[in-house]
C-alpha cells in the first residue's frame, strides 16, 4: 500500500514537472523542473517498464548460471558484484557524446532535445542496452557481430562488422575536431591538454616500474598533477616567452592530434592508454557528480526559449530542421548503437546473476541519459546570444566581432561585443567567438555554474578545468578507438595474408595503425579547413552512423524475439527500430538530396564547384575548394552506404521473421543450454 502511494506520488510529481516544462512559454523556467521530470521519468520507467520487460518478455532466470559462472577463468569471465559491473559498464558507455550532442541540439531550444533524451532514453536506448546485454549473456558473451551472424545469417554479420569499423573512423574524427576547436589559439587550453600526455606517461611508468599494479596510488598522483597543470596553464598564458609555443591555429593542432593518435596506437598500452583512462575515469565521475550537485544546489533558470526560430532548419550551428535532425544530433544520451558493442562482449562476461541485467543495462543507460540532461541544462542556462556567439562558425555569422553580434542579435538573441570580450577575459581566453564543437560553450556553462558556488575569481580556472576534463576523455576515446580499429583491420587483413593478422608483428602494427589514423585524420583535416566549421558535416554523419549501429542491434534483438516465439512482444525493440529507420532514412535523404547548400552534401559540392569555375572565390578559398568539393561528394556516398547497410540488415531480419512465421527453416536460436547456478548468493553478490 505504502509502495503504491509512493509510486503514485512519483508519477504525479513527474507529470507536473513534465507539464510545466512542456507548457511554459515566454517566461523562463527553472532547471530543477527538468531535473525533477527526468528523475521521475527514469524511476517510473525503471520500476515498471524495465521490470515488465525483464519479467514477461525476456523472462530473466536468477537460477540459471551466467557465462561468468560457467566459464570462470579468473581473467575475462569472472562473476562480479553488481555494483562493480555497473561501475565498469557505466564508465565504458559514458563518453563525451552525451555532453556534445545536447549542447549542439540546444540551437532548437531546450524543449525538443530534452523530450527526445527522456523519451528516446527510456523507450529506446535503455531497452537496446538491456536486451543486447541479455541476449549476449545467454550466448556466452558473444559480440553483436557474432550474434548477427548466428541469428540472422552472414549478411547481418558482415554489415555489423563494417558498420562498427566505419562508425569508429567518423567518431574519432569528430571528437578530434571538438578538441582542436577547444584548443585553437588558446595557449592555456593547449598547454594544459598537452601536459596530460607526459602526466599519463608518468603515471604509467609509476604503475609499471615503481609500484606495479598500484592503480589508486598512481591515479591520486596523476589527478593531482592534472589539477596542477590547469594552474600552470594560466602561468604559461601570462608568460610572453612561453605563450607563442602553445598558440596554434586549427590546422597545426589537427596535425598534432593526428601525430598523437598514431603514437598512442603503437605505444604499449601500459605507458599511455591505460594510465590516461584511470585519470579520465576519475575526473569524469568526479566532475559529473559535482555538476549534478551544483545544478540542484543553484537551481538556475533556463535562459534559452523552449523553441527557437531555427526549428525550420535555418540554424547556424548545423543545417537541418527539427525533424529529423534533433534525433540525429542527440544520439548518445537518447539511443546510441555504440553501447551495444559494450553490452555484448565485455559486460556479460562479468555478470554474476541474470537478475542484475535490469540495473546494469537499463539503469546504466538511464544514468548516461541523465548526464545528457545536465549537458542540456549547462548549455541553456547561458544567455542565448552568448551561446550562439560561441557556437556559430565564422563562415555563417562573419569573422568580425561587430558583424557577428549584429547578426546574432538580429535573430532575436541580443549580445554585445563588450559582453563577449568581458566573458572571454573572465575565462582567460583571447576570444570566445566561433568556438564551435560544443566543448567551449559547455565549459563556459559549467564554469559559470561552478563559479557561482565557489566564487567568481576562479572562473578562468574552472573554464580550463572543464576543457581539460573534456579533452582527457575525448583523447582516451581517440586512443582506444584507434587501437580497436587497428585490431579489427589486422583481423581483416589477416584474411589476405595471415602474417598481417598477427597483432604483435611490428610492420603490421605500423601499417594498420597508419591506415586507421589516416582514415580519421582525413576527415579531421577536412573538418578543420571547412569554413562553415566541420561540425556541420561531421556531427550529422556521426549521428547517422551511430543510429545505424543502434538499428542493427535492435534488428538482431527483434529477430531473436520473433524466433523465440515472442512475436506479440517484439514491439519493445521493433518500435524504436521503426522510429530509427524513419529518422535515419529521412536525415540521410535530406543530407544527400537537399538543395539547401548548408544541408545537402551534393548541393554544397555543386555550389562550390560553380563558384570556383566562375572565379568568385578568394585565392585561399579557391585553393581548398577542390578538396572540399571532393569531400562533400564522398560524404554523400558514405551516407548512402550507411543507409544501404541499414536497410539490408532490416530486410534480412524481416526475411528471417517471415520465414520463421511461415514455418520455413531458419537458423536455430544460438542460446547456450540452461545450467543451474551454484553460486551462493552472498558469496559474490554482496
Amino acid at each position, binding site marked *: 500500500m505504502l509502495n503504491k502511494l509512493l509510486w503514485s506520488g512519483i508519477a504525479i510529481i513527474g507529470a507536473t514537472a513534465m507539464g510545466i516544462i512542456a507548457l511554459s512559454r515566454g517566461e523562463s523556467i527553472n532547471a530543477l523542473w527538468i531535473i525533477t521530470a527526468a528523475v521521475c521519468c527514469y524511476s517510473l520507467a525503471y520500476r515498471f517498464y524495465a521490470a515488465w520487460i525483464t519479467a514477461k518478455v525476456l523472462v530473466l532466470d536468477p537460477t540459471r548460471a551466467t557465462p561468468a559462472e560457467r566459464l570462470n577463468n579468473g581473467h575475462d569471465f569472472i562473476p562480479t558484484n553488481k555494483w562493480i559491473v555497473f561501475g565498469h559498464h557505466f564508465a*565504458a558507455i559514458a563518453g563525451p*557524446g552525451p555532453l556534445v550532442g545536447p549542447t549542439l541540439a540546444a540551437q532548437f531550444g531546450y524543449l525538443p532535445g530534452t523530450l527526445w533524451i527522456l523519451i528516446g532514453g527510456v523507450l529506446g536506448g535503455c531497452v537496446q542496452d538491456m536486451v543486447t546485454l541479455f541476449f549476449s549473456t545467454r550466448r556466452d558473451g558473444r559480440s553483436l557481430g557474432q550474434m548477427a551472424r548466428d541469428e540472422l545469417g552472414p549478411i547481418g554479420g558482415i554489415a555489423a562488422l563494417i558498420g562498427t569499423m566505419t562508425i569508429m573512423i567518423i567518431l574519432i574524427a569528430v571528437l578530434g575536431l571538438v578538441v582542436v576547436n577547444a584548443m585553437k589559439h588558446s595557449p592555456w587550453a593547449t598547454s594544459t591538454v598537452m601536459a596530460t600526455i607526459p602526466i599519463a606517461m608518468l603515471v604509467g611508468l609509476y604503475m609499471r616500474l615503481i609500484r606495479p*599494479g598500484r592503480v589508486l596510488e598512481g591515479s591520486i598522483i596523476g589527478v593531482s598533477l592534472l589539477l596542477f597543470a590547469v594552474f600552470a596553464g594560466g602561468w604559461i598564458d601570462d608568460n610572453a616567452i612561453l605563450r607563442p609555443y602553445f598558440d596554434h591555429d586549427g590546422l597545426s593542432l589537427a596535425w598534432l592530434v593526428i601525430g598523437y593518435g598514431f603514437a598512442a596506437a603503437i605505444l604499449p598500452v*601500459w605507458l599511455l592508454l*591505460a594510465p590516461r583512462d584511470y585519470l579520465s575515469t576519475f575526473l569524469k565521475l568526479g566532475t559529473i557528480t559535482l555538476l549534478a550537485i551544483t545544478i540542484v544546489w543553484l537551481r538556475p533558470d533556463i535562459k534559452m526559449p523552449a523553441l527557437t526560430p531555427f526549428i525550420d532548419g535555418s540554424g547556424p550551428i548545423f543545417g537541418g530542421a527539427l525533424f529529423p535532425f534533433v534525433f540525429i544530433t542527440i544520439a548518445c544520451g537518447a539511443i546510441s548503437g555504440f553501447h551495444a558493442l559494450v553490452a555484448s562482449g565485455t559486460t556479460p562476461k562479468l555478470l554474476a546473476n541474470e537478475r542484475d541485467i535490469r540495473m546494469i543495462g537499463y539503469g546504466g543507460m538511464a544514468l548516461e541519459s541523465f548526464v545528457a540532461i545536465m549537458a542540456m541544462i549547462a548549455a541553456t542556462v547561458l544567455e542565448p546570444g552568448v551561446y550562439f556567439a560561441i557556437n556559430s562558425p565564422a563562415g555563417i555569422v562573419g569573422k568580425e566581432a561587430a558583424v557577428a553580434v549584429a547578426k546574432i542579435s538580429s535573430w532575436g538573441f541580443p549580445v554585445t561585443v563588450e559582453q563577449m570580450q568581458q566573458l572571454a577575459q573572465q575565462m582567460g581566453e583571447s576570444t570566445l567567438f566561433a568556438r564551435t564543437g560544443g566543448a567551449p560553450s559547455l565549459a563556459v556553462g559549467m564554469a559559470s555554474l561552478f563559479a557561482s558556488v565557489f566564487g567568481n575569481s576562479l572562473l578562468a580556472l574552472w573554464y580550463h578545468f572543464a576543457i581539460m576534463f573534456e579533452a582527457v576523455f575525448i583523447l582516451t576515446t581517440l586512443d*582506444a578507438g584507434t587501437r580497436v580499429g587497428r585490431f579489427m583491420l589486422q583481423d581483416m587483413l589477416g584474411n589476405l595474408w595471415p602474417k598481417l593478422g598477427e597483432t604483435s608483428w611490428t610492420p603490421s602494427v605500423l601499417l594498420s595503425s597508419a591506415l586507421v589514423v589516416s582514415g580519421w585524420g582525413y576527415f579531421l583535416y577536412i573538418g578543420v579547413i571547412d569554413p562553415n566549421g566541420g561540425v556541420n558535416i561531421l556531427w550529422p554523419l556521426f549521428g547517422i552512423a551511430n543510429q545505424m549501429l543502434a538499428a542493427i542491434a535492435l534488428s538482431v534483438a527483434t529477430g531473436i524475439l520473433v524466433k523465440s516465439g515472442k512475436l506479440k512482444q517484439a514491439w519493445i525493440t521493433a518500435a524504436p527500430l521503426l522510429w530509427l529507420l524513419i529518422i535515419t532514412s529521412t536525415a540521410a535523404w535530406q543530407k544527400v538530396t537537399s538543395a539547401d547548400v548548408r544541408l545537402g552534401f551534393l548541393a554544397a559540392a555543386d555550389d562550390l564547384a560553380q563558384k570556383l569555375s566562375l572565379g568568385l572565390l578568394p585565392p585561399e578559398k579557391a585553393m581548398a575548394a577542390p578538396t572540399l568539393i571532393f569531400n562533400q561528394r564522398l560524404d554523400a556516398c558514405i551516407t548512402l552506404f550507411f543507409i544501404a547497410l541499414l536497410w539490408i540488415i532490416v530486410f534480412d531480419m524481416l526475411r528471417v521473421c517471415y520465414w520463421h512465421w511461415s514455418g520455413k527453416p531458419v537458423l536455430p536460436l544460438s542460446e547456450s543450454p540452461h545450467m543451474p547456478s551454484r553460486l551462493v548468493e552472498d558469496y559474490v553478490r554482496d
Partner: protein
Amino acid sequence: MPLLLEKILSKTKYAWAILRQLSGDDAYERYVNHHSLCHSDEPLLSRSAFFKGWQEKKWHGIKRCC
C-alpha cells in the same frame, strides 16, 4: 557510540573495497586467490608480470564509447 563507530568503520571498509575492485587496485590479490583455489599446480605470476598481461587483455576489446 562504539556501535555506531563500528558501523561507520565497516561501511568505510566496504566502500574502500568497492573502490579498489572497481579500479583494479586489488586485481593481483584476486588473481592470487583464484590461483590458489583453481590452478595451484601452475607457477604463480609476479605482481608486475600479472599486471602487464592484465592491462594488455583489458584494452584488446571495445572498452570506451562515444
